[in-house]
């Protein structure tokens, strides 16, 4: 079983050190990613809450704004519409995007910037009829626009965070359920193999020793034999010499 779920490595001590290092890294990475996921989720919930809040007010405000424009048209007649349309030279507000960093995730953030475009033509739109209403409508739409830009930031933040949370969670799960156990199994495997090797070595050493002992014994025995042979030779020769002496003497 553990055979399948492990890395294919040579079971050596160096590999063991490498794998152990990797395991350590994986565990630490897991802890960090978990923390990141938690932070992101927290932020995600806050954003969601803000979105809901904004959206409920937005409906009302947009309706108000549109209706105030209707009022302006009603007070000023058709001409006021064209006066307003043609009175615009440059957009008064522009949307600018910047980035915010939440736990390493870059979230785009939009905000309105007043371009300071001169509204000289607009200023007097509907002077004869309905000018006050036009200004009211402008105020209402400015309010609505601020809200819209906020909502836009929140929505993109929501989507980005959602994506980020999903990848982070995937990574956390991968580390937790795949990478770490695999590394652990590898370590176990290497340790097992190393133990096995050690045992084999021990056995071999023992064998060698036994053989050495046997060799020594045999040598000794041979030596003893030789010695015994020598002795016998000497004795025999002495006896021969004695025999010779007897014969000569």
């Amino acid at each position, binding site marked *: 079983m553990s055979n399948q779920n492990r890395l294919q490595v040579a079971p050596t001590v160096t590999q063991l050190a490498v794998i152990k290092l990797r395991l350590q890294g994986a565990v630490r990475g897991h802890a960090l990613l978990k923390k990141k996921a938690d932070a992101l989720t927290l932020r995600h919930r806050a954003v969601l809450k803000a979105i809901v809040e904004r959206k409920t007010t937005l409906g009302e405000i947009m309706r108000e704004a549109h209706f105030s424009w209707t009022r302006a048209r*009603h007070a000023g007649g058709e*001409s006021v519409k064209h006066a307003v349309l043609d009175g615009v030279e440059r957009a008064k507000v522009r949307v600018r995007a910047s980035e915010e960093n939440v736990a390493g995730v870059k979230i785009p953030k939009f905000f309105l910037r007043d371009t300071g475009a001169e509204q000289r033509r607009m200023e007097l739109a509907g002077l004869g*009829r309905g000018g006050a209403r036009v200004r009211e409508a402008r105020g209402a739409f400015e309010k609505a626009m601020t809200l819209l830009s906020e909502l836009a930031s929140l929505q993109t933040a929501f989507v980005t965070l959602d994506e980020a949370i999903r990848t982070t969670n995937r990574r956390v799960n991968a580390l937790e359920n795949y990478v770490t156990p695999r590394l652990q199994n590898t370590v176990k495997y290497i340790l097992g193999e190393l133990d096995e090797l050690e045992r084999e070595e021990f056995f071999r050493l023992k064998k060698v020793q036994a053989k050495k002992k046997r060799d020594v014994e045999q040598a000794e025995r041979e030596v003893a034999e030789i010695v015994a042979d020598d002795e016998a030779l000497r004795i025999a020769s002495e006896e021969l010499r004695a025999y010779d002496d007897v014969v000569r003497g």
Partner: protein
Amino acid sequence: MFNRKHGFSEAFVRGCHSKRLSKRDYEELGRCDSLEDVKTYLESISDYSDYLRNVQPPVKPEDIVACCKRRHVKEFNTCQHQASPPLSTFLEYLTYGHMIDNLMLALNGMLHGRSSEEILDKCSPIGLFDSLPSVVISGNVQELYRLVLVDTPLAKYLSGAVSAADLDELNVELIRNVLYKEYLQDFMKFCSTLDLRTNELMKNLLDLEADRHAIRITVNSFGTELSKSVRTTLYTNFGTMHPDGFVRLATCETVDEVKQVLVTYPGFHEVAAKDDAHDVDRGLRILELESCQRVLAEQFNLAAFYAFSKFQENELSNLMWLTECIAQRQKSSLGEGLICIDTHL
């Protein structure tokens, strides 16, 4: 004498006028929940059916308003085609207001480089003058000035008030109001050449219009860069409040001050009692329509045509308000914009 020349026109106008939407119609329309209902109702009760027939669902507020406008233009044109002097001249004077709007539209559009079709499309058909297309095509502000001077009845207003060089620098809204002022003054002068009764009635109506013009400019100029001296130049040289009322208006800085000025005039007493600035405007409109109503009660004068056109405008704005309210589901505000003067005596 009057009947021989203008009797038919007057009868025609009165006939059209009796077909204006009445208070009851507005009540019924106010009960509608969708624009389809409004369309059905309008088709059932009035002459609108011819105009509404081609409107395809989904009905938009603009469609209904456009139908109403087409109807008014047709009524007016029929009237104008059969008019003989002095009625024809009188009716021409009525178109000058639209003409000024169209001219300003052309000027504004040209300053912004819009195409001529686009500009002509927006122009009100009542105030079209023959050279308007060529004016628009000329595409040059100086040329426009020259053409207007040569070809249109507005020449006398324009030459008196603005020079060619001012045209692209001066604010278009200012020009519009200067022209309108000149137009009112000229209309007044023209009316004094008409018969006694018309003159009398028209004097009342134009006085009111002049006051209204002044009051609106004053109220609408609060919070803008329009200086008080410029404001004074936009006031007419007649009106019930002329001259000291206008002098006092010129120095006003808040709506309350305007009201204080208004209180001193018996005609505007009621209007000044209103709280909201917008109510003042509404009050003035009601006042205007009421005097138009009184004018219509009389016969044998040209002022009836003026009153008639004012009622047309009112119906248009009422319908626009009504359809928008229904389309935006803001029916609670219905009463805020509708002005119903019961036209049927």
